[in-house]
């Protein structure tokens, strides 16, 4: 990995400055920001890779829109893509101890019998309970809305797993050796969907979104009115899971 800026303090100032400037930018000139990102519909989903040395911007709110109507029964492509991208490969004798960053949920409406399926992962709440309960601050929300676990200071108390309303987090029950270099994960820490933060920072889409053959998942900046995802959300009815809890998840569903 190369960098133009070798002075860490300068890099930090630059990062902080970019963050502040980004915030100011959206407040003052949302239209301009919008124009900067708008391109063809697909590319607009993911912004260009952030410049090396710049921090995630609070002007951005990354999110997913998942169309449950398009999600095909029996298809596991998003799960496989996620788990191979993130190196979630361990198979323990008790399957309840295995990590699952993303899972397929089959729903049948008790009153009508209508059935749907959808992928479920960390919902990247705006007000995440996991962040509130974390004793060390390891559970954190990045400026652009991605909820992560800082494994450098996670003590493995599992309080966040108790607090999460979506069962979105897993605990690593065994020593690991097969991690992908870009996705560190290890024994004794809690983990969950990172929204493929290492890909998003490069301007790529999350692995699950990319892998979906039905195009049921789309990724983008919810704050950017010109992004495909924001336009879609503005034009069709979508729901947040457990919206009654008022956690404002960044993942929205269509067709449930």
């Amino acid at each position: 990995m190369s960098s133009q800026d070798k002075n860490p303090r300068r890099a930090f100032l630059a990062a902080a400055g970019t963050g502040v400037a980004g915030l100011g930018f959206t407040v003052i000139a949302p239209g301009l920001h919008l124009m900067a990102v708008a391109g063809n519909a697909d590319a607009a989903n993911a912004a260009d890779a952030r410049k090396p040395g710049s921090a995630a911007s609070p002007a951005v709110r990354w999110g997913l829109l998942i169309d449950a109507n398009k999600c095909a029964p029996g298809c596991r492509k998003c799960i496989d893509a996620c788990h191979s991208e993130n190196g979630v490969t361990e198979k323990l004798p008790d399957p309840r101890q295995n990590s699952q960053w993303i899972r397929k949920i089959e729903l049948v409406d008790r009153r009508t019998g209508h059935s749907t399926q959808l992928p479920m992962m960390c919902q990247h709440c705006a007000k995440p309970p996991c962040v509130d309960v974390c004793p060390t601050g390891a559970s954190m929300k990045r400026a652009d809305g991605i909820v992560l676990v800082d494994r450098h200071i996670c003590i493995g108390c599992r309080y966040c797993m108790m607090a999460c309303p979506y069962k979105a987090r897993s605990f690593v029950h065994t020593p690991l050796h097969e991690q992908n270099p870009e996705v560190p994960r290890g024994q004794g820490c809690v983990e969950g969907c990172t929204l493929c933060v290492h890909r998003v920072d490069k301007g790529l889409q999350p692995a699950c979104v990319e892998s979906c053959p039905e195009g049921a998942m789309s990724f983008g900046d919810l704050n950017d009115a010109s992004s495909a995802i924001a336009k879609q959300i503005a034009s069709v009815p979508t729901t947040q899971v457990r919206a009654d809890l008022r956690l404002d998840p960044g993942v929205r569903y269509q067709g449930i």
Partner: protein
Amino acid sequence: MMKPDPRNKESLFYLTAAIGALVSATGVAAALYMEHQGHVVTGMNNQIVWGLPLIVAIFLIVSASGVLNIGSMASVFGRVLYKSRAPLAGLLAVAMLTGGLAAIMLDLGRADRIMVAATHVNLTSVFGWNMILYPVFYSLVAVYLWTMMERRMNPWSKVVGFATFIWRVVMTTGTGCIFVFLVARQAYGTALLAPMFIIMSFAWGLAIHILTQAAMYAANGTQLPALVLQRTKNLLGSFVAATLYFTAVMHLANIYFAKNTAFEYFILMNSEFTSLFWVGQVLLGSLLPLALLYHPATAARGAWVNLASLLVILGGLIQLYVFIIGGQAFPLDIFPGYEVKSSFFDAEVDHYAASLPEMLLALGGIGIAFTITLIGVRVLDFMPHDDPAQLEAAGSKTD
């Protein structure tokens, strides 16, 4: 009663201390094993994330706060009877908090990062509060013991006792709040838990104090004054009754809420926790002790009061098991109104069986508390010394 041979007493001390140390060491060894292998060797999983070590730890921590109620009865509420018993309460509080914290910390996924927990405190987290609550509690109890056991410091004992009283109410509120601040779990998330944990702490702490005191009197071949027995057992009875009352109110309110009816049906009628709740928590842990404490045939006998205390402790552990394991075993209602199926066991009732290392770690926590208490009462004078004149005066008053 016959005075035991001092030589036997000596060897009895070393034997029990050795057993206590062995149990503690086994617990630490079990934690090392868990640390090395990962939590794969426990019965815990991604749904039931807190198991037996946490249950025992919470029991010890809650009791540590509650046992000091004996001290508060003397220093805050002016009951002379309890004054000579307050130092023992202080020792038990320190011992149990240490044992409880050891169990909870050795159960962490990264137990080696205790210093991280101490240096990175997130103040919106109840666990984060504990990083402040527990050390201050330790210091307050230490100062409280000093003011009681050092004659020249005696005048300060009332003030420090009062501060300790306030602090332990805050601390146990914090322990209850661990479960209050869980937005989506049906078993938790009610503010009632905070006062309920305080009442539970009174009952469990007193029961542990009664048993410890009984053991000390037996080892010294002396008898607990009848008045003391009568007062403490009445106090224990009222705490047990109050705990039962809180339990009833919590479940009744939950039964009424349609969103929680399924959970209540699960705990109270149709699960592995049903018999634990009714037989363990309600019958053996509450009703039977109440009967023993108030029935004329058993109420005045030390042995029966001790049995009642033992049952209260057992009932408390069962209550926490039902509360913590039962609450996690019942699935989250992520999609209300839908039948849900997934590869991650969504909407499925989970089952927990503690593995041997977990049991040893949990026992280890108790072992640490026991060993500290044993050594404490051996090296310092924690034996309650009742002044007969004061006892008589207290007996003539109606409390």
